[in-house]
């Protein structure tokens, strides 16, 4: 169809633009040791709080470290946290949502009320509470953010599963004697992946913001490890003398979040059957 | 003498379609949904257009209503009375639709606004085209609903569409279509979603309306049975073309085209002719 009639640029433009931005961030994260001009930890007391220059394109921080290099390494942490957090949310939420919709009745009531409860906490507060009980570390930040995502994914998975359950191929599967597990994983799951992937892209953007917020509050990545959140937190103290300390991590977050949101919106348009002819 | 030959002696058809062609541009070439269709509906005549999916029957009806998707390319001529439908401005077309020309769709439930009481909806054409107040329109709606045999119409005008059964909803759509005494009613599979007993009542109602109001009806369907019970004249469509036309008796007793014969032979029946 689309392939036969040539590539439809208009339909894919958001995905391409979002993909480009996300690609830049991912590239920086994966190849940080090769891309970054300096180590993110090297101190140079002679070069404290220097503005952008030929040697340090985006300036240096209060300990004379290269801001560009730190921002690039920070992308690593953000991507790791977001990836694991979204995975926790996606897998947990999808299992809960599908189970609730498929079995219905009391199972559904219990699971979805638990999700309501979880959902009613402000996300950042929930993450802070979880971090307080799990201890502050990057791994715990990932898990905390992942748990914050579970209710959203579970609701989407439940609604999508309910739509699939109304299709006759589910009755057909039951009537040939297929087991519940096989129906759930072979018949339902592949048909609810598209909306979940869209949600995952958007959640990725949100995870980056949440991780930064936690780091900003000192609950995520611990210094000297660089993260956009703790860079921003440091930059706040030097707003007047060295604005680049705040602007650089801020812009990095902006590019990353924008990229994932565009990707999510684009995927929604591309996978939405109503948009096809 | 059938209606058609009587009409031919005096006057002109209510609806006259000539060489109607509808194309849908696609990335590679274009798709011709209707290919040079000509048909007439005479005053007081019920004309059936029968065909299977993809025959172009619905596209022909939608062309007459000017309700085709925007990208459709239409050529040919369609005349309703003295008006050349394809040359009318959108505003003129809006005035015509629901007034001189009304449409009864297949799915009444989706065509009715779920948040508006039946009385207001049935009376709405009178508000739009005759400047009646809503109150006057609702009281007229009571008469219209009575005319389509809705019981206790005074009470039912207060109901919302979901309180009506499928058959009742279709009656309400027909009442709405009748509100302004149109010259032509176009009905696209209006009984397909209904149970047979309800369908029989709706078909009877349409015949009654034709006899009483002398309204012309263009009836689009895939069901040969419905055509045999309702229509005076039949056009058989296949792949965008009219392959055969004739009086209902002629089409069913002496079909000429292979496609028509095949349709007749495919139709399951309760009255099989004993194989000898």
């Amino acid at each position, binding site marked *: 169809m689309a392939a036969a009639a040539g590539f439809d640029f208009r339909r894919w433009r958001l995905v391409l633009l979002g993909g480009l931005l996300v690609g830049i961030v991912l590239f920086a994260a994966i190849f940080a040791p090769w891309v970054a001009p300096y180590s993110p930890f090297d101190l140079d007391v002679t070069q404290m709080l220097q503005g952008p220059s030929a040697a340090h394109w985006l300036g240096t921080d209060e300990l004379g470290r290269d801001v560009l290099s730190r921002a690039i390494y920070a992308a690593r942490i953000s991507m790791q946290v977001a990836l694991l957090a979204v995975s926790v949310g996606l897998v947990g939420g999808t299992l809960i949502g599908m189970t609730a919709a498929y079995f219905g009745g009391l199972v559904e009531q219990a699971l979805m009320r638990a999700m309501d409860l979880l959902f009613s906490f402000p996300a950042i507060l929930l993450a802070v509470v979880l971090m307080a009980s799990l201890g502050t570390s990057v791994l715990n930040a990932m898990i905390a953010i992942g748990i914050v995502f579970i209710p959203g994914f579970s609701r989407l998975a439940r609604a999508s599963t309910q739509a699939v359950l109304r299709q006759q191929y589910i*009755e057909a599967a*039951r009537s*040939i004697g297929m087991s519940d597990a096989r129906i759930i994983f072979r018949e339902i799951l592949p048909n609810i992946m598209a909306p979940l992937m869209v949600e995952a892209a958007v959640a990725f953007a949100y995870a980056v913001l949440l991780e930064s917020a936690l780091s900003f509050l000192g609950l995520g990545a611990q210094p000297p490890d660089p993260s956009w959140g703790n860079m921003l937190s440091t930059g706040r103290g030097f707003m007047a003398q060295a604005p680049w300390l705040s602007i650089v991590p801020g812009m990095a977050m902006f590019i990353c979040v924008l990229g994932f949101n565009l990707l999510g919106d684009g995927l929604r348009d591309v996978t939405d059957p109503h948009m096809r002819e | 003498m059938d209606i058609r030959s009587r009409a031919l002696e005096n006057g002109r058809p209510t609806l006259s379609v000539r060489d109607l062609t509808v194309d849908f541009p696609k990335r590679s070439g274009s798709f011709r949904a209707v290919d040079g269709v000509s048909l007439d509906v005479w005053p007081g005549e019920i004309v059936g257009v029968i065909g299977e999916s993809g025959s172009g029957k619905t596209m022909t009806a939608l062309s007459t209503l000017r309700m085709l998707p925007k990208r459709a390319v239409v050529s040919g001529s369609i005349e309703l009375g003295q008006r050349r439908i394809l040359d009318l401005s959108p505003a003129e077309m809006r005035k015509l639709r629901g007034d001189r020309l009304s449409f009864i769709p297949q799915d009444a439930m989706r065509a009715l606004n779920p948040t508006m009481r039946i009385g207001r909806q049935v009376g709405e054409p009178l508000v739009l085209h005759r400047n009646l107040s809503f109150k006057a329109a609702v009281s007229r709606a009571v008469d219209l609903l009575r005319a389509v045999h809705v019981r206790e119409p005074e009470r039912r005008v207060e109901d919302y569409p979901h309180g009506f059964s499928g058959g009742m909803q279709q009656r309400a759509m027909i009442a709405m279509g009748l509100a302004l005494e149109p010259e032509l009613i176009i009905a696209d599979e209006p009984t397909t979603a209904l149970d*047979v007993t309800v369908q*029989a009542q709706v078909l009877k109602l349409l015949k009654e309306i034709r006899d009483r109001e002398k309204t012309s009806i263009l009836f689009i369907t895939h069901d040969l049975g419905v055509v045999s019970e309702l229509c005076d004249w039949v056009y058989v469509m296949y792949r965008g073309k009219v392959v055969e036309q004739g009086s209902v008796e002629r089409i069913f007793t002496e079909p000429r085209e292979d496609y028509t014969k095949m349709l007749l*032979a495919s139709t*399951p029946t*309760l009255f099989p002719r004993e194989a000898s």
Partner: protein
Amino acid sequence: MTDTVIQVAGVTKSFVRGVNAVDDVTLSVARGETLGIVGESGSGKSTLLRMILRLIRPSAGTITLDGRDVWNAHDRDLKAVRRQMQAVFQDPASSFNPRQSIGTILAAPLEVHGIGDRASRAKLIGETLERVGLPAATVSRFPHQLSGGQRQRVAIARAVIMRPAVVLADEPTSALDVSVQAQVLKLFREIKDELGLTSVFVSHNLAVIREVSDRVAVMRHGRLVEIGTAERVFNSPESDYTRALIDAVPDPFRRFRAPVELESGS
């Protein structure tokens, strides 16, 4: 020949609002016969079929297949019930998983019941496709690439690939054009005769029911109105409702004589 395959005894299904979707229905289907169940919307005909198929649990009554209680079967008995009884559904658009190829769809019942190995399954799928009049290349196609009639042929293939004893069909041709419907009904009858299938065929279309059925059950508001041979029910109906139903059918050959070349269907 009065060997009973399906026995439905006093079966009732009540939904929440106290109305019985199916109300105390008793009937049986003999080996090799086709029972047509006809009724309007809300008659309970599809609910009854789904209870036999073990998709909706009855509120009361028992359903047996070859003497095995369908709803109280366990383990091996349940497997046997599942294997013996297959279904063809109405909607050619939604009765297949859109993300699976026809090959995957047809292999599923064989895999679930552990029949054959990869090679023998592929061979069986090929033969079955050929039998329902589809080219072998259909295995690699996806449902949306097929027409409505082709999809119903695949649905029939899926139902018979395990050589079941019973096939239950719910309005299998209602969404099809008449010319396609005629072909699919013909295929259904041929395969049924070839495999000696017992079948239950649910439809709102009296003429279709007349064409495929040996015996006919008429349902209304969840109750069985009457049951008898197709000849008897359509030629001399006992109940006023059946009479009214027959009179309401817009049948072209009531007014005009059917063409000679039309098969009578009996």
